[in-house]
């Protein structure tokens, strides 16, 4: 077990370079023939000098657009990949060189790939993992019973994964990753493609094992709801570099100091109320529709009470709402609309 205050996982200036074949049209027969015989390659720095550490019991989100280097970082930490340079340490060991010892102590869930046998009942795959991880039979049975009741999959244990829905299968995958009491769990998009009920069930379960069993969680997800609800700390990664590492509140303060105020009004008190609001220093946007308007202010320049006072002077209010910036908007703002739009999931409905 790691000592108190000693990081359970850390990467220090880690770099991973991939080579990929370069596909580009060539002019001239000789060049095309040469290209056929010898493929040109390009190198990609998937992770480029990333450093961070995770303490035992933390719940950390690794966020970034597609191709940012999140999954590569997780694979470097779990010993699947060997770093080109720099150092990764898990439980104080090099995870690539001590892959077997490290694998005994961590769990992994890949949302887009199954780790269970597709054609045989789930329980048989779980029994295989019991033997693989040397889990005593009594521990295996008690944990299986506990987890399957919480995740409500008891009746699915005798079914083959290929006959299960995605949500049911994913819950089984999570149980498979946790049966051996891992100290850290890597969750790579655990809720991708699931409905809101299944997502909530999984989020509640992950929160529970993090809180009750002190399991450290490293989450890669494009679902901002997962991140909002589960994690305390966010690491933003883009083009292989870390862009931010801190708490959710720090992220909001640093990257998003805007507030939106939505007002439904009964009547206006002044004729040029729109100009009065728009010209106020610190108001960055005003959208007026039938009987209501939405105001965006920069909190560094204008305090919420000040603008509320002004609003009361210019309109008679029926309803008012001051909106906190949500994480998805912040992340979209950081990575840019285009980069982010392609990979976020549709917003979830509230359960």
């Amino acid at each position: 077990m790691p000592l108190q205050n000693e990081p359970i996982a850390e990467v220090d200036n880690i770099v991973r370079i991939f080579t990929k074949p370069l596909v580009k049209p060539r002019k001239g027969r000789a060049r095309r023939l040469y290209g056929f015989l010898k493929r040109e390659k390009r190198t990609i720095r998937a992770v480029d000098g990333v450093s961070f550490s995770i303490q035992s019991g933390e719940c950390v989100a690794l966020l970034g657009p597609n191709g940012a280097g999140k999954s590569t970082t997780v694979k470097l930490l779990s010993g699947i990949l060997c770093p080109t340079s720099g150092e990764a340490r898990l439980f104080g060991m090099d995870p690539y060189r001590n892959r077997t010892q490290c694998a005994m102590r961590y769990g992994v869930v890949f949302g887009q790939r199954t780790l269970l046998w597709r054609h045989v009942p789930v329980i048989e795959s779980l029994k295989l993992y019991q033997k693989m991880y040397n889990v005593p039979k009594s521990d295996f049975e008690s944990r299986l019973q506990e987890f399957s009741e919480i995740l409500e999959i008891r009746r699915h244990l005798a079914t083959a994964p290929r006959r299960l829905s995605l949500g049911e299968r994913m819950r089984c995958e999570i149980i498979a990753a946790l049966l051996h009491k891992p100290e850290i769990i890597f969750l790579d998009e655990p809720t991708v493609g699931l409905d809101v009920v299944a997502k909530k069930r999984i989020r509640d379960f992950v929160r529970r094992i993090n809180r009750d069993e002190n399991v450290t969680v490293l989450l890669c997800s494009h679902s901002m709801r997962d991140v909002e609800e589960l994690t305390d700390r966010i690491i933003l990664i883009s083009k292989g570099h870390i862009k931010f590492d801190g708490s959710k509140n720090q992220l909001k303060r640093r990257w998003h100091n805007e507030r939106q105020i939505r007002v439904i009004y009964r009547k206006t008190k002044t004729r040029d109320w729109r100009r009065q609001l728009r010209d106020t220093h610190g108001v960055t946007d005003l959208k007026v529709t039938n009987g209501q308007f939405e105001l965006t202010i920069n909190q560094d320049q204008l305090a919420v009470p000040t603008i509320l006072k002004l609003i009361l002077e210019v309109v008679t209010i029926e309803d008012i709402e001051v909106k906190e910036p949500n994480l998805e908007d912040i992340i979209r703002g950081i990575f840019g609309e285009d980069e982010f739009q392609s990979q976020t999931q549709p917003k979830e409905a509230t359960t």
Partner: protein
Amino acid sequence: MGLRDLSRQLRLLSTYFKLSVLSMAENKAMLWGSIFSSVVNLAAYVVFWNVITSQVPVLTGAGIAVWGRGELTVLIGMTEIAWGFGAFFWMGTWMVPEYVTEVGLEKFLIRPVSPFFMILAENFWFGGLIQVAIGGAMVGLSSITFGLTISIPGLLLGLLTLVTGQGALYALWAGLACLAFWIGRNHALLEVADAIEVKFARMPIDTMPQTVQQILTFILPVIYIATVPVMLMLGQLPLSSGLFYLGIAACLFLGWLLFFRFIFGLGLRRYNPVGG
């Protein structure tokens, strides 16, 4: 590897075996289809050799072995046994290029067990065991029909040589499969290796030109798959020569195993999974 690890691996192997049986029960059509194709393939081969040997009474191998109809049938039967065992245990080797190129290797690399052991154990092929039974029946029936005497020490030494030679052959094969880390899907390369094993092993290699014999003895471990075991089993090769061949097979096994481990280790270092 300690005793505890060994017992864990054996327990895992039995669980994998059980899972494979359950999985096979879901894919019966595929199993029977592949068995049927193997039987057709084998039947064509037996018919061809029957025609040849009915016109040419015996083939002499380097002045030592005498290959009559009975001996040749035993040889083909022995190849089936070897190939059946190989197909049962080593079928996973065929999957390596697939796993490497389709991001399937992760699921083996996150487990506290050798990834290659898991690849093999997840891909047991039960059609192989049926081939072993067919091969065994061919050996048994032909030795009765043609009145061949089987020497027990020769049989034991022959089987040991077969297992060692096959280990060497599949270590080479696994090394070739791991070239997928560099060249992607390399099934064509595996097809060549498979052809060398299946096509050459079924023939009495000691009747071939000297250079081919030497290649199939000292570089490619093909002679140990059927020719040497059958010669030992039928008492056509002295046990001392059998021990010599066993030694060479063991050296080849070690050499090709090192080759495989080197390629696999190097490949893992440059493993380049596509996408998240």
